């Protein structure tokens, strides 16, 4: 997506996982959003894996909120993975992301029912 971050898409088309490696901020949030959008159409459960994300700003949080809204209105689910020891964990709490989107410490913990 840019020098700052790149996106890895895994899983299958109904339960895709988008892993973001690097930093997300105002300079690349639109590109990251576009990359995620490609997986949204067929997704039933979308997982955004931020395990390898080293930096996140409010624009990225905004993107996640927006994504959660879009999926929820069509009765689909968004999960975000942030390990407990990640530097960005505190930001998820501060920004209220925790309260609106299920944030899991491991990708395996996702209960897909």
């Amino acid at each position, binding site marked *: 997506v840019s020098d*700052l971050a790149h996106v890895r898409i895994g899983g299958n088309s109904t339960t895709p996982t988008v892993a973001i490696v690097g930093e997300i*901020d*105002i*300079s*690349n949030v639109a590109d990251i959003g576009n990359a995620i959008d490609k997986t949204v159409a067929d997704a039933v459960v979308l997982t955004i894996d931020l395990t390898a994300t080293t930096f996140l700003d*409010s624009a990225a949080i905004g993107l996640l909120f927006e994504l959660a809204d879009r999926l929820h209105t069509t009765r689909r689910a968004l999960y975000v993975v942030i390990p407990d020891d990640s*530097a960005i964990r505190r*930001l998820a709490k501060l920004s209220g992301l925790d309260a609106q989107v299920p944030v899991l410490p491991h990708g395996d913990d996702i209960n897909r029912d």
Partner: protein
Amino acid sequence: VTGVGVDQQLGWLGRRPVRTQLVVVALTYYVAGQAGLRLSLVGRSVTPLWPPTGVAVVALLAFGRRLWPAVTVAALAINLPIGPTVAAAVVIAVGNTLAPIAAVVLLERVHFRIDLARVRDAAALVFLAGFAAMAISATVGTLALYRAGAVTGHNVAGAWSVWWTGDAMGVLVVAPFLWSFRRAPAGRGRNRAPEAVALSFLLVGACALAMLPSIPVLFMVVPVVGLIAWRFGERGAARADLVVSVIATIVAAHETGSFAGLSLLARMVTLQSFNATVVFTSLLLAAAVSQRADVAAVQREAVETLQRSLLPEHLPHVPGLELASRYIPASEHVQLGGDWYDVMALENGRYGIVIGDVAGHGIIAAAMMGKIRMALRAYAFDSNSCGAVLARLNALLRDVQEGATATVWYGRYDPRDRTLEYSNAGHLPPLLSGADGAPTQFLEEVHGPPLGAIGGVRFSQSQRVLDEGSTLLLYTDGLIERRNVSIDNGLAALRAQMRGNGTDLQAACDALIVGLVAEAAEDDIAVLALRLCGEAIEFHVQRPAVPASVPQVRHLLHTWLADHGITGDDSFEILIATTEACANVVTHAYGLKAGPMNVNARLSGNGLLVVVTDDGRWRTAATKDGGRGLSIIRSVMDEVEIVTTPRTEVRMERRLIGSTRE
């Protein structure tokens, strides 16, 4: 092949095909032969200086012995017209080829160097290449003439000696002359042309005198050649030798001056011994001079290198500190001593400060000091306390058992909160002065004995916060100790001297030494002064207010924070707040045309202030994120202030938690 200067010998010709080399060498040999024949004393065969042998030795040494056919062919071409028979000419040509080959073999065996910079090179050229090898051509040539009947029994010895000396002089005079034109090493910078011109005139004058009819003053050129050899080394000597030999030969051929009224044999003997003396003496003198110069240069360089390696060439920049130092070794001739000072950047934004004194003087103390200085630096990087550094250094000195002892004061300064931790191993107490310049106190704590004195010692440490504007003076005993003066009186004198010093720190150090130390220092003196100059630790960056600038600013700030020991949560949350403030500027400050965005940070004590400014005005509250960025800023920073007129300025302060700062 011959150690040094092979490239220099080869030059242009070295890169040509062998065919070209053969032709050029043969032609040069032939021309040199024709020139030699013009110097003949009698007829066309008795020639006191035979330049082609020099050409042959130089060529075979430079390009390899495979060029021998060039020598044979050219020698044949010279000898056929003048030789008594064709067979004799062929034999002479063979002898003329064998002699330079033998010379080259002998020179290579003794690792001869064409720069003639060593006495052994000059000696090898004279005795091996000149006298020994040229006996071959003389013997072969004389036998050939004898067989052909051109020389009769009773003058075989005379013919042999003339041939031998002629060929030998050809090597001794012509070869160094040719070598003197090899590319010079990097110039010495000084223009020596006037001296060269003056000496050339002197030489021409002496030669002119020598050519005067009926006044035998040929010897007068000898001191001139010696002078040239002394001043211009082997290159000058070689060129002067050629001039003098040719002149002497001409004078001998004209039977004037020193050669007037002598028999042929006497002229021959006089000429040859004169030439041999001049060449031998000048080359030996040049080699001796350059050998001595080499030794002196090597010694000087060794001392300078050692000295440079022993003391820090530049003190590092320590934020908030002005530093000055002075070092005066006791020994006048060798600028080395056992005292030292050091300032080094440690991890976490701290700085190590050292003053020390190894017992003893001169080169032994200096070498020991170098080892201790480096060991201290190594320990400083992975020890938690100043006392631990000194304890490990003490154990090291005990362990190496070289009997060295050293007094050392080691401090660790943190510019953020101006704290100084220090531990003192038997060193004199540093003097602390207040902001008004008046000495306030000596840091009298001593935490242990001199290093290396007693094994297994633990060193405690002290800590204090230094005031802005205060000065800490570290010094070694050479500054205050005098015969018949007690240390207390010396310290009192230091205190008094320090009081009178002005604001310039370096000038203050110098004034201390001038005021306290007699002209000839009895002991090494090291002085290191630190003044807290109140300089804040600051970060400035300006970028256009576009999205791509935001990660750039963040990365620069990240590096700066890490450089000052700020990592972990402190760093991450400062970066979040700054990124949000920058994102606001990028999103809201300007219209279509992006203006500048400034980010400044200032670190003082435990507080960090980040100020993000722009030249535009934030358009209020049309933010689609509902002010999320601002709320993040407020939750990670302790104080946040936003000034919106005339331009927007976000001031964010944080008290550092310092989770990663020890």
